[in-house]
Structures are given as C-alpha cells and as structure tokens.
C-alpha cells in the first residue's frame, strides 16, 4: 500500500504557476540590467563584406555593439560546435545573428539594430537536402569534419553533417528473396515546438569574474559545459541558476543566445537580458528536422515481413549545433525510431544534411514521429495491397515476448500485441461507420526511456522539514511533483513536508542531461529514491539508538516512527523525533546520491531494456468537397507500468496526442527559399482546444519498468503514432494516400480530385 505514489496529487508548482508568482528567466531583474538584441541575416547564404556599427554605437543609451570581430573565433554547440556566436565571414541562413547590441531598454536596442548596416555578397544557396548532397551543390561549410565534436567521418559527400548505417541481417538479400517488395517515400516538414516561453536568458558577471546565467534551458549542467567551452573557461567559472522552463517539448536544450548574452554583459560591464521574439523563434529557433524517408519493404506471400531498408534524409538546416547527439542518427538509434515489428533483416541509413535553412534541433521523440509516419503508413499500404485487415497484418508481425529489438539487445515484457488488441476493442475498429467518408486508421510504435547519470540531494533540518535539492528544472511536465511524491513515499510523510529546491549548478549534484528522452521520472526518480532510502536508513538507525530499541522494531509509517515490541505499539510524529535526532547529531541530515547506469559511450543516449508500446486508432471524417479532415476520435492504448501520478501521466498522453494532431494536419514552418513565411503563431498553426476531438486512453498496467515503483516512460510515446494513424484513417475514408505532412485540406482536396477510384493504393 503506497502513501502518495499513484495518487492524483496536484502539482507542487501549481500555485506559483497559476498565481503568476513563478519566476521564469524573463522575470529575473538585476540592478543595471540591459536589454540585448540581435540583428539577423536577411539572406540565406552570403558573404559579409562589411558591417557598419558606428551609428548604433553613438545612439544614446547603447552600452555595447558587437560583431564577430569583437569576439574570439570560437564556435558553439551541444555536441557539434559549428555555430559562430555571431556570423563570421558569411551567413548560412535567414535569421542568423550578425550583430548584437545591449542597451538601456528594448526600444533603444531595437533602434540601435536599425542603425547597423551590413554589406553582403549573396552566394548561391541550397534548400532541398536531396539537392544539397549532389555534386556541385553550394558548399555551406567548407570543412565540417574539422569542427569540434563533429562525427568522425570521411565527408566525401557534399554538405553531410552525419551519416550512419545500422543493420541487422542482410536487408538487400532479404529484399531480393521477398515475394513482394513495396517502396515509398514520405516527407515531413520543419515543425516548431511552440512552447509558450520563447528562449530567454540573463547573464551577469560577478566581482570575481564568475559568469551567472539564468536561462530557459532544461539541461543546466550541459549548458554550463557548453558556455564554459564557448568562453574557454572552466565549468566552475559558470554558474547556471535554475529557473522554471515555460515549455520545452525538446526544444530547450541548446545554448541559443547565452554565449552572446555573456559577451554583451562583458563588453557593457552590466548584466544583460535577451528574450527572443516569437518571430525570431520561428525563423531561428531549433525546430524538428524536416525529413524525406524512403522505405523499401519485402514480405512473404503469407504477409510476414522479410526485410526492410530505410533511407532517411534529415534536413539539418544551416548548423548542427542544436543537436544533442553527435552523429545525429535520428533514425538509426538502437530502437530503430520506434519500429515495433519482427523484421529478420533491417537496415537504416540515416543522413543528416546541411541546407541554408533554419538549424534544427530536437522535439518530443526526435526522429520517431517522422519514422512512424513513414513506416506505419507503409504498413497500411501493404496490408491493403495484400488484402489483409491492417490490424491483422500488424498482429502477424508485431514483436512478442522473446523477440529482440531491431538492432539487438534485449527487451522484457513486450506488450505490443496487447496494446493493439486493447485499442481495437476500445475504439470500435471494425464497427459499421456512421456515414460515407468516415474512416479509421491504426498505428503502433514503441519508445523506451532514456538514461542519464544524475544526482540528488536530500536534506532534513532540525524542524523535520525535508528538502529535495536537485538540478532538473521543471519544464512543465510535472516531474517535480513526481519527485516530491517519491520522497514523501519513502519517508511516509505528507507531501507538504517535502520542499523542492533547485538553486544553481555550483551547489547541486550534477543532473546530467537534465530533462529529455522521457528520462526524468526514471533517472532522477531513481537518484531521488536512492537518496530517500539512504536518509530513511540513517533516521531509523539513529532512532533506534536514541530510543534504545532494536532497529528492526522501528519503521516509518503514516507520518511518524512506529515502534513495535513491548505491550503496545508506540508512534512518534516524524518531525518531533527527527528534530530530537538532529539535535543529538548536532547537524541536519544531508544525503547525496548518484544514479548512473548509462552503459553507452560518452555522449550517447542509452536505452533501458524495458520499452513501452502504444497503439492508436483514429477516426476521421473527410469533407469531400473541401478536403477538410475532421478528426472525430482518437483512442490510444499504452502499455504502462505503475503510474506515479495519474494527472501528470494523463497530461503527457493527451499533450502528445494534441501535438501529434498538429503534426498530422496543420503544423509546418512554411519556408520559401530559406525564408520562413509563418512568422507568428497566427500563421504557424497549432491546434486550439476546439480542434481537439474526443480522446480516449486505455492503459494496460503492467508493473515492470525502470522508473521507481516499476514505472515506465510516458513523456514522448503518445505523439509518435498519431500522424500515421490519421493518414491511414484518411485513406480508409477516401481511398487517397498522402505521403507528405501536414495533411492540409487543400492537399487532400487536389488528391481527391485526381483520384477517381476509391481503392487505396
């Protein structure tokens, strides 16, 4: 029987968020704080001939004006350090920073920017990744292999950031031997994370030269390292102060403006704040990679998958700096982008290519939704071609207990078929449809949690109040609440006795990756669990000593110490006895633990042997006269472990579904010759609440997972299958197959016009 784990308790940060008292990076104030702003390139690829900053410098209220000439010749990045702090010699995308100012206020800063003139000499640009790798394509980076952190490859192909191949068996041979082979190509666009809070940072340099940073960043310790590398100082010379992050969805892990903000602070001698406008976010944030994914699949007559060869071309944009993984194998990771099928021979070639477009980064389930759209669309195409029900076709090929992940390793507790069975039952799959042009589509994928080495510190003071100190900022998912629950659970105390304190990197255990890869409940959860168990053990030992009772007779129950033995049980309230214990020791309890099971190479994500499966059925209705798709219902089934908090758990599921709907039918950074046309959230469309259909969740509880109390990851999986399930439903409704996201009404309209037949390809 648990105390608070598994209960639908409210958010520990709920009150400060709802009341507006939470202090985000933009709320940081400091005496003499200046406003920093950047001048961005209007051209996608051009030599910088000359920058004239004299007029800007002489404007009253301007405290610093910088170009690359003022900065050391360093490049920054999460792994691949290829991004200059300000463009040096040339610009590579529209929106690249070429100059920056710090001024007494925003208006002055903006006026100063308007006084800077830049002479460019335009260079030929390339925007299509498949064109960028051709011989003779414009060269965007002269020597990419020379960058720090660049993948060690022989770059014989133009503009390649990274290239990986993962294979099991001989896919070529498998395809040759197959009875039938299907080949299709799918495209997905640049997609912005659309968090509410744009990238924001404040930098200040203290009297001893330490650099203080407040930033909307989910990985404070990695940020510290990135900034230290950019500034050529020691990590301990940089102090990152944790602040809540106003939405992340994978997009808040890059240094973004922080190094520039530092130099503005240095040159002005004043603290500086930089807040990107949303237009800047949409033109120069770090959106999800656009992709072209070609899938060649061979099957036996029986419908068994034989071999699969996937070629992924990811559009990196102009830089690789925002990618957290050096070889950018978005699709080639061990889990094969979430494929949940038993495939004897499989090969994934993943190529990431520089273009003169916005540099891409990660977004919720990086690579997975793109791969899922391609694979799960094609599974439907194959099922229809061989006239097997799409569910039956999947049942035949899904992994089951004993099967291996696509590229080796092991999986335990495989629930792929159970998830599909459940979603079929709950969704009305196979039931008669209410009207023509109503269709249903299915998709199944898997995703495991990431592992990050991470530490936690628990302090219990002499009042008996418990403080959890750890270095993962709350980025909106509710992870702090989960961690608070774990502490309260282990000590059997009420939640309000547990406070969460974040502080700064100079006084916190290293939190590794911070938040990301559905890993916080797992990695930080385990570190917190370990710290809480250790402190509990110390309390029980000390209690036994002070009370003169055998330790085995003492336990923590229901907000107090329970002492058994003797005529009757005795209960001493937690705070009362702890304050006696602390007084006896002459100090508070203070335990720091590290959780580190990462088996992979340095800098590479490692994945746990437990994954989770998600099967979805979507029902749509298409208006044949307009092409508009009304999503009527989404049913999502998840193979989950113990649910630590049903509210935050459900929030992750529904949030992912809604982002998946956006990815499927409306979200797209529309780009024309490198220029993003959708420069505000009126034009860059994400679903509003009125676009959200009935969402139904089915949970298969199977307590077996790496998260404390046998939980599994839930942060990313629900976004993964959505677009494919919707595309499949549209095909079911109309007979028309769309190979490109988003499926807008207009695209579908023209396809409907073209297709006279009602049979799916």
């Amino acid at each position, binding site marked *: 029987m648990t105390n608070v784990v598994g209960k639908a308790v409210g958010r520990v940060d709920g009150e400060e968020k709802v009341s507006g008292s939470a202090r985000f990076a933009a709320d940081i104030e400091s005496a003499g704080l200046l406003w920093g702003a950047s001048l961005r390139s209007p051209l996608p690829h051009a030599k910088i001939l000359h920058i004239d900053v004299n007029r800007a410098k002489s404007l009253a209220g301007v405290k610093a004006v910088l170009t690359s000439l003022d900065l050391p010749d360093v490049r920054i990045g999460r792994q691949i350090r290829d991004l200059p702090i300000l463009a040096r010699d040339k610009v590579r995308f529209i929106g690249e920073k070429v100059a920056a100012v710090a001024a007494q206020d925003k*208006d002055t800063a903006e006026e100063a920017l308007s006084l800077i003139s830049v002479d460019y000499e335009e260079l030929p640009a390339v925007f299509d990744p498949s064109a960028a790798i051709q011989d003779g394509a414009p060269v965007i980076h002269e020597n990419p292999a020379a960058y720090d952190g660049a993948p060690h490859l022989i770059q014989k192909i133009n503009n390649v950031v990274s290239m990986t191949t993962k294979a099991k068996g001989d896919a070529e041979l498998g395809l040759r031997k197959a009875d039938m082979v299907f080949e299709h190509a799918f495209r997905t666009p640049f997609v912005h994370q659309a968090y509410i809070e744009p990238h924001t940072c404040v930098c200040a340099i203290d009297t001893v030269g330490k650099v203080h940073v407040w930033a909307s960043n989910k990985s404070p310790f990695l940020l510290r390292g990135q900034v230290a590398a950019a500034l050529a100082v020691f990590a301990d010379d940089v102090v990152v102060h944790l602040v809540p992050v106003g939405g992340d969805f994978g997009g808040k892990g890059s240094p973004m403006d922080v190094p520039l903000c530092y130099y503005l602070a240095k040159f002005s001698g004043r603290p500086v704040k930089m807040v990107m406008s949303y237009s800047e976010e949409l033109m120069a944030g770090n959106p999800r990679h656009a992709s072209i994914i070609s899938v060649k699949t061979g099957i036996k007559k029986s419908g068994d998958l034989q071999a699969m060869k996937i070629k992924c071309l990811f559009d990196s944009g102009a830089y690789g700096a925002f990618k957290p993984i050096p070889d950018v194998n978005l699709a080639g990771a061990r889990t094969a982008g979430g494929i949940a099928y038993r495939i004897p021979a499989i090969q994934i070639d993943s190529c990431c290519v520089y273009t003169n477009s916005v540099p891409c980064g990660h977004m919720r389930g990086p690579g997975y939704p793109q791969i899922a759209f391609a694979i799960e669309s094609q599974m439907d195409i194959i099922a229809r071609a061989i006239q097997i029900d799409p569910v039956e076709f999947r049942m035949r090929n899904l992994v089951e207990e004993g099967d291996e992940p696509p590229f080796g390793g092991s999986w335990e507790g495989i629930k792929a078929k159970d998830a599909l069975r459940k979603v079929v039952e709950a969704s009305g799959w196979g039931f008669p449809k209410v009207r023509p042009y109503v269709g249903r589509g299915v998709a199944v994928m898997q995703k495991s949690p990431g592992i990050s080495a991470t530490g936690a510190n628990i302090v219990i003071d002499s009042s008996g109040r418990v403080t959890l100190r750890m270095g993962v900022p709350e980025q909106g998912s509710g992870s702090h609440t989960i961690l608070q629950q774990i502490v309260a659970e282990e000590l059997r105390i009420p939640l309000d006795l547990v406070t969460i304190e974040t502080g700064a990197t100079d006084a916190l255990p290293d939190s590794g990756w911070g938040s990301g890869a559905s890993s916080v409940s797992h990695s930080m959860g385990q570190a917190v669990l370990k710290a809480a168990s250790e402190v509990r053990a110390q309390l029980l030992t000390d209690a036994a000593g002070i009370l003169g009772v055998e330790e085995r007779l003492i336990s923590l129950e229901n907000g107090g110490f329970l002492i058994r033995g003797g005529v009757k049980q005795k209960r001493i309230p937690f705070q009362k006895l702890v304050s006696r214990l602390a007084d006896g020791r002459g100090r508070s309890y203070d335990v720091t633990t590290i959780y580190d099971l990462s088996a992979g190479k340095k800098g590479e994500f490692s994945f746990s042997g437990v994954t989770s499966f998600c099967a979805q059925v979507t029902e749509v209705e298409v208006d044949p*006269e307009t092409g508009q798709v009304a999503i009527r219902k989404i049913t999502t089934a998840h193979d989950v472990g113990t649910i630590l908090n049903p509210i935050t758990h459900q929030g992750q599921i529904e949030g992912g579904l809604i982002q998946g709907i956006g990815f499927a039918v*409306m979200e797209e950074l529309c780009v024309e010759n490198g220029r993003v046309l*959708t420069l505000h959230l009126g034009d860059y469309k994400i679903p*509003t609440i009125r*676009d959200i259909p009935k969402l139904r969740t089915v949970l298969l509880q199977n307590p077996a997972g790496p998260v404390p109390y046998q939980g599994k990851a839930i942060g990313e999986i629900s976004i993964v299958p959505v677009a494919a399930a919707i595309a499949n439903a549209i095909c079911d409704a109309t007979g028309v197959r769309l190979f490109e996201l988003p499926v807008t009404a207009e695209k579908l309209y023209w396809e409907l016009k073209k297709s006279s037949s009602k049979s799916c390809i």
Partner: protein
Amino acid sequence: MTTDYFEPESISEVVSLLDRFGDNGCVIAGGQSLLVMMRHGLVSPRYLVSLKNVVGLSGIQESTDGDLTIGAMTSHRDVHRSSLLQRRTPVLCQAAAKVGSTPIRNLGTIAGNICHNELGADPPAALLVLDSRAVCVSANGERNVPLAQFFTGYFETALRPGEVVKAIEIPSPPSDMAGIYLKYVVRSGDLAVVGVAVLLGLESDGKHCREVRIGLGGVAPVPLRAHKAEQILRGNAIGDEILSEVANVARSEVDPVSDAHGSAEYRRKMVAVFVKRAIRHAVDVSLGQGAIYGKTN
C-alpha cells in the same frame, strides 16, 4: 517610440483630439486588431484615442421605423447575444459568433472590425448583405457611408483622417428573408479562408428565389457582394443546376490571394462550395427545415 494614450468621454472630444493629431492619431476600441498590429510593429501610432469611456457608444437600438443602430463599441459577443439582432438580423449574429475566440469576441467591437478591414473578417460579409452603413464623424460633421463603399483595399477603408465610426446602421432589415453565414477555416478561431453570408427570400411557392444577396469575405482585397451570382439566382427556381451556375459565377467575382495557407485556386473552389452550401442552408431555413445555429462549419 512612446505612445500617448487618451480616454475622452464624449464623441466631440474624440473628434477634436483626432483633428489635432492628424495622421499621428489612431482610434482604439477593443484593441483586438490594433494591439496585434502594434506588437508586430506594423503600425506605431503616436497618439491613441480610446473610445472606452465615451458615453453612448455601446448598445443596439431599434427605431420606430425598424431601423437598427449598433453603437461602435458594441462587442461581437453583444451582437451575437442580442435578442433583438437574433430576431431581426440572424445572419449578423452568426457572423459575430464566429469571430476569433471568446476573449476576442468579449473585447473586440463590430466597428473596430470593419475599420481594421482585415482579410477574412466575419462581420463585413453579413453587414454587406444587410445593406448597412457606417456613421462616420469628424470635426467637420457626420456622414453615412454605405458599407459597399466603405471597404477600399487590404486594411483600407473610406474613413478619412480625423474620422471615427460612431455606429453602424442597418436600415430596416428585411423580415421575410432567411440569413445564413458560413465560415471555412483551417484551424478553429482563425480568420476565414472563405466567409459567405446569404440572405434569401423565397416566393410563396417555396421554390423560386424572390430575392438573394450574397456577401463574401476573405477572398478579395475587400469583402464584397457577388452581384452577378445574385442576378443569376434571382427569380429562378432553386435547383442543382442553377446553384452550380451561381457558384461558378461567384467564383469568378472574387480575387483571392495565394499564401502559406492556401492557393488562390483552392480558395476560388471553396467560394463555389460554400456559396452553394449557404444558399441550400438558407432555403432550408426559409422552409422551416433548418436550424440556424446547427453545425454549419
């Protein structure tokens, strides 16, 4: 640049401030369009004159002759919820109900909407089929501008410098015609890709069209009436064939843009689809078979 903000309490103070500020002055009503423009740096007025505290600018009046006057500061929500307007001009109430989102409808005003003249606004198409007029006031006096002449180009109107719209007048709206407004959007709450307002009166046989007016929004630099399409339907029995013809002619009367959210060609096709749908719907309502506030997209 700083903006000075004024909250006069009478319309005469408003016009004298506007007269004084000339091109540097700008009227703000609900702010739902202007503040967005200012935020994007598209306009940066030196002086803002708010109508918020001006007495007598809100509310809807009906004269003894049956003319309706809607005060400039009447919100979309008040237009939508007015029982008087729901009885007399349901097409306008439907259009007002489809503006943006609830907060926008609570704050945004009908006069602000027409003065902004943004592509894809909802009320203009409905106001056009109701033959409405804008009552424009300046230091030099008052004039009525028929809405058909009020809209002059993207974000442009016939409003002269120093003028403010005090009210919108709907002269004696017909009581024997059914009104329908349909809006086509990519995402809920957006401006219309196509907005179609139809006012339709049937002959007593329930088959022939006695009178029809078709207003279109979102598909040309200005909201407009599809006069040629109306002419084809007027006097004829309503059937599939003639509706196709009406739709095709309406399609030729528009001049839509191509942008990130749709091609001009697609928008023209949608004009045809929604003109047809709106007329059919209006026929149903005329015959007492259709609900005005049903799911009409």
